[in-house]
Structures are given as structure tokens and as C-alpha cells.
């Protein structure tokens, strides 16, 4: 098993080399955080959710069957953690309508680089007005180039449902991004 393979580090962790988990965190933290920020919208919360997801994954590492990719399994944990937090947020009546967040008013506390700031705004803009399931599909399908089957495992939505959702949002997201990136619209 090569060091390129996530399973190499999983075996290391399971044999007692706890520090090997840092490599897995480093490899997947960006995508985990991107999913979390796409769904939670608040960076501090997204960071907390991402950390919790990595902790949960660590605790359950010996239950990981290796039938799927480690990343797929990890994204499912992140997705579930986000959904659970969003439900709690709703139950606690925190008035944070995720579809109506004004980007310019969103919480920007830490001094990230200007580039990070730009990325955050663009991502929020692209995903704005989309239901959480669609946001996840977009992030996994376009950002991570996952297959419909893998997305189905992560979101627990059927493959046909994902295909329908993709079909429905493709034009919308393309239009948004085309305006932003001056990409010529196909068929227009």
C-alpha cells in the first residue's frame, strides 16, 4: 500500500500511530471545510463543524469498511453533521435564513487573506438561493468531480433524484457563474 493511498494512513492510525491522522486531515480539510461553509454559511460554525467531523471520523475509523473511498465516507459525516446543526439552529429559532443572507453582512471576523475573502464571497454567491441538498450536490459534483453514485452515498438521495436536481440547477448555476466569469453561455 503506497503513501498516496488514504488507507495507508488509516492502517497506521489503527495500529497506534495517532499522528498519521494529521496527514488525512491535511489531505481532506479543504473540501470538508468547503462543504461545511457551503451549507453553514458562517465561517466560525463551518470550522467547528469540520473539526467535529474529523473527530467523529477518527472515533469511528475502525468501522470504516474501505468499500468506498475514505473521502466519500468523510464527506457523509460532514454532511450529516451540517444537517444536524442546521436543524438545531432552526429549533433554536436563530434568525438566520440561509437563503437570505446578505453577503456583505455575513460574519467576517478573522483576517483571512483577500483571496480567501474573494473565494468565500464567490462561493456564497454561486450557492445562494439553493436548498442545502442542491448545494451539496453542486459542491461534490463540480468541485470534487464525484460520481452520481458517490453523491448518492453521501447525501442518501437516490441517483435519479440527484440527476433530476442536477438537471434543474445546471442552467441556473451556469448562468450565475457565466456572469461572474464572463463565460459565453452555451446555446445562447
Amino acid at each position, binding site marked *: 500500500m503506497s503513501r498516496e493511498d488514504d488507507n495507508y494512513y488509516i492502517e497506521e*492510525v489503527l495500529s497506534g500511530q495517532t499522528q498519521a491522522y*494529521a496527514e488525512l486531515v491535511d489531505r481532506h480539510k479543504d473540501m470538508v*471545510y468547503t462543504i461545511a461553509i457551503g451549507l453553514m454559511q458562517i465561517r466560525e460554525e463551518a470550522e467547528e463543524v469540520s*473539526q467535529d467531523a*474529523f473527530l467523529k471520523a*477518527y*472515533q469511528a475509523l475502525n468501522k470504516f469498511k474501505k468499500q468506498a473511498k475514505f473521502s466519500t465516507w468523510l464527506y457523509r459525516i460532514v454532511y450529516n453533521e451540517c444537517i444536524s446543526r442546521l436543524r438545531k439552529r432552526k429549533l433554536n429559532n436563530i434568525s438566520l435564513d440561509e437563503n437570505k443572507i446578505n453577503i456583505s453582512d455575513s460574519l467576517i471576523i478573522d483576517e483571512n487573506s483577500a483571496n480567501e475573502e474573494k473565494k468565500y464571497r464567490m462561493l456564497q454567491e454561486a450557492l445562494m438561493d439553493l436548498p442545502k441538498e442542491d448545494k451539496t450536490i453542486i459542491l461534490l459534483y*463540480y468541485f470534487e468531480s464525484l460520481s452520481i453514485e458517490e453523491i448518492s452515498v453521501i447525501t442518501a438521495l437516490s441517483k435519479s433524484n440527484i440527476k433530476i436536481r442536477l438537471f434543474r440547477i*445546471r442552467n441556473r448555476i451556469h448562468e450565475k457563474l457565466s456572469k461572474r466569469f464572463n463565460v459565453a453561455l452555451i446555446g445562447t
Partner: protein
Amino acid sequence: MVDKTTQQDEQIREAFSDIGKMTPKEDFTMNVMSKIEKELIPVHIQYTPIFSKSGWAFIAVLVLGLSLSIFYLSPESSGFFPSLSFQIDLSSFSSIINMLFTQIAEFLFSSEIVLSLIAMAGLGLINFVIFQRINPMKA
């Protein structure tokens, strides 16, 4: 239609690739690792009982059997257990076997051995219960 979809997909992927994934704070990995080290029992430490459930059942039956046999086989036994006061007749065995069996029987039925076995079984049971409760993977 397929071409349009494929082209759109490619353009969206390109746009997302230009945006790039979000990056958490620099100390993200360090924070996760310190939480793991401080708050969690390492994942590889898992309690595996020395004896299986059937093993423990066997030990329990053995201990119970030995305890009861003290009362049944002891000639001077009395109390709430009926005393049968029969003795194992070892005279028919050859002298070596006879001696061996007698010694084994004396050894096995000595109160020290019985008490030790009961104590070991009790400690093992406590150990088993405690470790099963604190094992995070079972929680």
C-alpha cells in the same frame, strides 16, 4: 442536448476550479490533533476480553460446581445444604492413580483454591464490566 450539458458541466467545473476550495485556518490540523490527543482515547485501544461469553459461563459453572461440591463431598458438612456424606472410593484404582487422584482431589477441594477461584472470577467479572463501560467504541 448531451453536448450542451457536457459543455456546461465543463464550464461550471472550470469556474469552480477558478474559485478554488476554501481553506480553514492555518492551525486547523493542529487543533484537530490536539483535541484527539486530549479528549479521546486512542482509537486502537480496544478492550478484547480474555474469555468469551461462553468461557465466562463455563468458569461460572465451574466455580458454582466447586462451591457446591464442597458442601456435598465434605463429610462434616452441615447447614442448609443436605449432606450426602458419600465418599469417592478410590481404592479400586491402582496405587499410583489412587494417590494421584487423591492428591488432585485434595488440592482442588482445598478451601484456598476454591476461594482463590471465586476471587479470580469476581475480579475478572468486575474488570470485564468496567472495561466494557469505558470502551468508547462500544458507547
